[in-house]
């Protein structure tokens, strides 16, 4: 399995990379999705620009009351970040659930988000976190919300020549609990379904709920009906079941050899209930 011939550039700066991308080159990050596709010749880019050699794209930091994660932060760097564990545990928990050690050592958050695999883990968490993505072109910069970014399977609002430069997530206060629950496809580690929940309580009432779902349909989405069913309640076990049942409602569910559409919907409800319970139990 040998990829088609291509040219390779390892730029030192973002400007240099964006310049090459503007003339038709394709970004290479961890290669954990792109290289398998190139080996199978499902992808045959003529020119690859390696983002991992750009030092300025690799960071995890707090600024302006938010968390900023550079595109090439690896799944392992996110999973093991003390800052994120403390201020955004949903992301560390999600990163730790991706694939296997070797994939987490190489794969990057920018690559995962840009690739937009319908079974990828981060998109569920990033929907629940209402993350923002900073996209740069040779002469442009814009910020797009997770809600607007994921368009279809493997399809996003990224324009040719643009890269995802940074992911921005909020810092929640102590009354917020989060959880990511996933049904693993055992061969690859991808999510058959994955549900990320973020809830805030005020005087024991849920004042705010955000639920992101991946694996179920063509792209990760927010389950707003389920969120509304929790808000304003001190949810009983029954309320949680009822809210969880809403995450898959009206969704055109994927079906493949691992899980039929009906089974996926069932799994989504089961994992949503687990994630809601676990998120509430983590509120300190």
């Amino acid at each position, binding site marked *: *399995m040998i990829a*088609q011939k*291509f040219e390779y550039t390892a730029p030192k700066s973002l400007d240099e990379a964006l310049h090459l991308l503007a003339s038709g080159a394709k970004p290479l990050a961890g290669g954990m999705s792109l290289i398998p596709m190139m*080996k199978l010749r499902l992808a045959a880019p003529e020119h690859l620009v390696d983002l991992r050699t750009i030092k300025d794209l690799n960071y995890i930091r707090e600024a302006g009351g938010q968390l900023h994660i550079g595109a090439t932060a690896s799944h*392992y760097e996110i999973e093991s970040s003390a800052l994120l564990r403390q201020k955004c545990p949903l992301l560390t928990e999600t990163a730790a659930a991706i694939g296997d*050690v*070797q994939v987490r050592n*190489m794969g990057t958050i920018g690559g995962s988000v840009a690739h937009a695999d319908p079974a990828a883990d981060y998109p569920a968490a990033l929907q629940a976190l209402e993350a923002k993505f900073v996209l740069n072109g040779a002469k442009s910069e814009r910020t797009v919300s997770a809600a607007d970014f994921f368009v279809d399977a493997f399809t996003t609002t990224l324009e040719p020549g643009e890269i995802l430069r940074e992911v921005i997530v909020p810092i929640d206060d102590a009354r917020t609990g989060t959880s990511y629950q996933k049904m693993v496809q055992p061969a690859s580690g991808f999510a058959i379904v994955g549900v990320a929940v973020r809830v805030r309580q005020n005087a024991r009432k849920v004042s705010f709920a955000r639920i992101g779902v991946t694996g179920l349909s063509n792209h990760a989405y927010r389950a707003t009906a389920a969120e509304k069913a929790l808000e304003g309640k001190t949810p009983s076990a029954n309320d949680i079941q009822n809210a969880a049942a809403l995450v898959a409602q009206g969704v055109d569910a994927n079906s493949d050899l691992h899980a039929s559409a009906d089974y996926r919907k069932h799994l989504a409800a089961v994992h949503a209930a687990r994630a809601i319970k676990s998120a509430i139990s983590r509120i300190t």
Partner: protein
Amino acid sequence: MKINLSINGKSYSQDVEPRLLLIHFLREVAGLTGTHMGCETSLCGACTVELNGKAIKSCTMFAVQANGAEIVTVEGLANNGKLDPVQEAFWNEHGLQCGFCTPGMIMASKQILDRNPSPTEEEVRHGLEGNVCRCTGYQHIVNAVKAAAAGAGK
């Protein structure tokens, strides 16, 4: 493209095609055949090597991406004929049968112990999720990692 890298402490400088996979560089250019090509599809972990201290699948990386890197393969573990404690433990605990998966298993096991010197059984199994063995049923591999952690691999 000209690349420079270190493998098991030895420097290599070579002109390569960008599409050459790291595993092919290791096996065919450097002649280090200890690293095995199993699935070729990023799933089995037989090709695992250490790149700048991190376990990676060398079938899913181009050699040009390793330019400037320090690589350790299974051949680089023994020191002056003395096996690494993880190698010893695989031997003592019968952590292999046919041995095909073993180089990758050992490199992945080293990563587990580098990051967590006394892992639980569950943590060992989690750390080996990227490595497939068709022979052992994993129990003896897990025992070997635990034995290496306990310093019993002597």
